[in-house]
C-alpha cells in the first residue's frame, strides 16, 4: 500500500509526534525542557524489546508497558528533581540542566542493562532491528499503519481528557494562569505530577514506536533529542496539539526529504539528514517564533467555512 519510504516516514513521524508532544506538555506546565526525554524514549524501546525477547508474541502488546514505565520515570523525575526546583522558582536553564543530569543517569543504566543482557542472556541489545519482528498488514508493514493510529489515539485521548474531565480542565486552567488556578483551590502539585506522568509515558511510547523504523541502540534517544526539540519548537510550545503536529511534520519532512534528496544527488547526502530538522528549527525560531501556534486556527477555520459556503451558492 505505501511505498517503503513513506511507510518508514509515517512510523518515524508518528514517533516524533509523540515525543514532541510530551516535551511541549512538560514545557507549558512546568517550564522545563525535558532533556531526559532521550533516556525515557530509549527506555520505552528497551522495555518492549526485553518483554518481546522473553515472552515473544505480538510486540505491540508491550507498548502500554513501555508507556507505564515512562510514566514511572517521569514521576521519579518530578518528585526528586523538578518539584524542589520549581518551589525555588529555578530558571529555565537550571530546570533543563537538572533533566540533563537525570538523562545521563538513565543512559548509564541503559548501557549497564545492555551489558547485563548480552552477558547473561546472550542477547544483542546494542543493535536491534525491531522491524524484523513486525508483521504485514494490507501489503505494507503493520508499523506504518499502527503508528499513526497510536499517535492519533493518544491525541484524541488527550483532547478528551483535557476538555471533558474536571482534572483535565484544571490542567488547562493551570497552564493558562497558574496563580488564578491555585487561588481557586486547584492543587498545582497534582497538575505537574500528571504532566510528568503523561509526558514521560509519551516519551517512552515514542521510543517504542521509533524502534520500528530505526535501529534500536542505547543512544537512540540521545541521537534524536534534537529532532524532538525541533518538533516541539515548530509546534510553538503553546499547545500539546501544536507539539504533536510539529513533531509529525518535522519527522515526515526529514525522513521523506532526505530520501528524495538522496535520489536526486546520491546516497552521500544521507549522512547530513540532521540538517533538515535543524533548518526547520532555525526558520521557525528566526521567522515564526510562535511556530504553528502562531497561526490563527479559528480564523483559518472561519475562512474555510466561508469559502465553502461561497462555493455552494
Amino acid at each position, binding site marked *: 500500500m505505501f511505498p517503503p519510504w513513506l511507510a518508514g516516514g509515517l512510523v518515524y513521524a508518528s514517533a516524533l509526534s509523540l515525543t514532541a508532544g510530551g516535551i511541549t506538555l512538560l514545557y507549558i506546565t512546568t517550564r522545563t*525542557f525535558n532533556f531526559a526525554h532521550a533516556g525515557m524514549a530509549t527506555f520505552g524501546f528497551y522495555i518492549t524489546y526485553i518483554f518481546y525477547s522473553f515472552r515473544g508474541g505480538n510486540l505491540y502488546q508491550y507498548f502500554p508497558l513501555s508507556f507505564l514505565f515512562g510514566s514511572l520515570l517521569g514521576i521519579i523525575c518530578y518528585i526528586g*528533581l523538578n518539584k*524542589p*526546583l520549581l518551589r525555588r522558582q*529555578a*530558571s*529555565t*536553564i*537550571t530546570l*533543563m*540542566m*537538572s533533566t*540533563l*543530569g*537525570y*538523562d*545521563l*543517569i*538513565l*543512559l*548509564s*543504566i541503559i*548501557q*549497564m542493562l545492555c*551489558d*547485563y543482557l*548480552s*552477558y*547473561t542472556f546472550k542477547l544483542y541489545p546494542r543493535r536491534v532491528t525491531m522491524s524484523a519482528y513486525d508483521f504485514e498488514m494490507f501489503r505494507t508493514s503493520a508499523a506504518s499503519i499502527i503508528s499513526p493510529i497510536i499517535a492519533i489515539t493518544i491525541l484524541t485521548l488527550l483532547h478528551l481528557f483535557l476538555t471533558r474531565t474536571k482534572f483535565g480542565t484544571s490542567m488547562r486552567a493551570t497552564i493558562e494562569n497558574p496563580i488564578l488556578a491555585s487561588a481557586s483551590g486547584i492543587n498545582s502539585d497534582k497538575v505537574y505530577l500528571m504532566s510528568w506522568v503523561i509526558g514521560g509515558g509519551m516519551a517512552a511510547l515514542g521510543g517504542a514506536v521509533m524502534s520500528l523504523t530505526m535501529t534500536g541502540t542505547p543512544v537512540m534517544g540521545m541521537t534524536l533529542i*534534537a529532532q524532538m*526539540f*525541533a518538533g516541539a*519548537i515548530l509546534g510553538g510550545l503553546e499547545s500539546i496539539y501544536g507539539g504533536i503536529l510539529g513533531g509529525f511534520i518535522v519527522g515526515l519532512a526529514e525522513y521523506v526529504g532526505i530520501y528524495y534528496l538522496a535520489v536526486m544527488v546520491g546516497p*552521500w547526502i544521507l*549522512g*547530513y539528514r*540532521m*540538517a533538515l*530538522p*535543524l533548518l526547520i*528549527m*532555525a526558520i521557525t*525560531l*528566526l521567522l515564526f517564533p510562535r511556530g504553528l501556534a502562531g497561526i490563527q486556527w479559528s480564523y483559518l477555520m472561519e475562512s474555510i467555512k466561508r469559502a465553502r459556503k461561497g462555493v455552494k451558492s
Partner: protein
Amino acid sequence: MRNIGDVLKQNLMKREVIISLVILLVLTYLAISYGLSIILSTLIIFSIFSIVTLSLNLEVGHTGISQFGRVISVIAGAFVVGAIPGRILAFLYGLPFGLEYADDAVNYKVVPFIHKILEKNIALALGFFLFCLVLAGLSGALIGWLTSRPAIRLREAYLGISLLAFGDFFMWVGHNWEPLVGGTTAVFIPDPFRIVWGYRIQAVAFTFLAIAVLVYLFIERITKSPFGRTLKMLRDSPLVSRVYGKNIVKIRTQSLVIGSAIAAIGGALYVIYTGTCTAIGFTRLTWTFWPWAYMMLGGIGSNIGMVLGVLVLTVLRTLIILYRKSVFGFLLLWGIDPIWLEYTLLGLVIIFIVLFMPYGLVPEKAETVLPSGRIKAILESVRKQSSRTPEN
C-alpha cells in the same frame, strides 16, 4: 598591618585551599602508586579542559549566554588544525596536499614523512605549533562571530537548544565529509613535539600547562577590567545597560568571539596531543556537558572556581578509570563494564550541584573596585562623621 600568621590562617580556612590540598594529596598518592605518566596525562587533560571551561565561563558566567554549543568552537579549532597545517607542510615539501590528503591510505604515508622533517628542525616544529594555535584561534573567532548572530535574538533555553543542535550537526559533517578530516577514519596530525623524542609527554604537559596558565591570566585580566564589569552589568540588568548607552549586541559578540577563540585553541591542543583528529570523538557529552559540569561545580562566574572544578572532576574521573576493576569489579560478575559509571557520575554531579550547591564551590562574590582596606577606612570615617550629632 596584618602579620603573615593571620594572613595564612585566614586563607587556609578557605574552601578552595582545602580542596586543592586534598587534590594534591590524591595526586601524590597516584604518582607514587602508578608512576609519573598518569599524573602527566591527567595534567594535560586538565590543562585542555581548563582552557575550554574558562572560555565557557566567560560566555555563560560573565555574559549570561546559554552556551550549549561549546563543542562547535572546539570542533572549529580541532578540524582546522586537522585539515590545514598538515596540508601546508605537505605542499611545501612536494607531498600530496589536496582532497586526497585526508584519505587514509595517503595520509598514513604522508604524515610520517612530515614527522621526519619536524624531528630535525626545531624552528619549523615551533613555528608549526604556533601556527596551529593561531589558526585555531582565528577560526574559533570566526565561529564565535557566526554563533553570535542567533545569540542576539534568542534567549535562554531556546538559544541553548539551537546551539546544541548545531554542535551535533557540525560533528556529523566532519564525520561524513571525508576530505575534511578523514570522516570515519581519522586524519593524523603532524606532531611538533617529536623533537623531544623520549620525553614527549613531559614536554606536552609542561607546554600545555603553561598555555593554560596564560589563558587563565588573560581571562582574569579581561573579567576584572571595565569590559568585564560591563559584561556583568549586561548579564544582570540588560535594560539598565541599554539606558547607560552600552551596545549590547557589540559586547555580547565580543564576548562570544573571545570565548570561542579560546575554546578553539583548546580543541587544537587536544588533537595535537592525541595526534589524530577523529570527528566522532567531538561529542556534545565530552565538550559541552562535561565543561558545563566543571563550570557548575566550580561556581559560575568565578575563574578560580573553574580551575578547581576541572581539577576535582578530572581527578575523580581518573580515579574511576584506574580503580574501575578493583572497586567496581563486582559489576563484571554480571558482565557490566564499570566505565559506564562515568556517565552516572556526571549525572549525579550535575543533579547534586543543581539541588544543593547552585552557586558551586566558589560562589561569585561582589567585585570591589578599591582594595578592601581602603573601603574599610572610608566606612570608618563616615561612621565617625555621622556619630557627631549637631549638638556636639
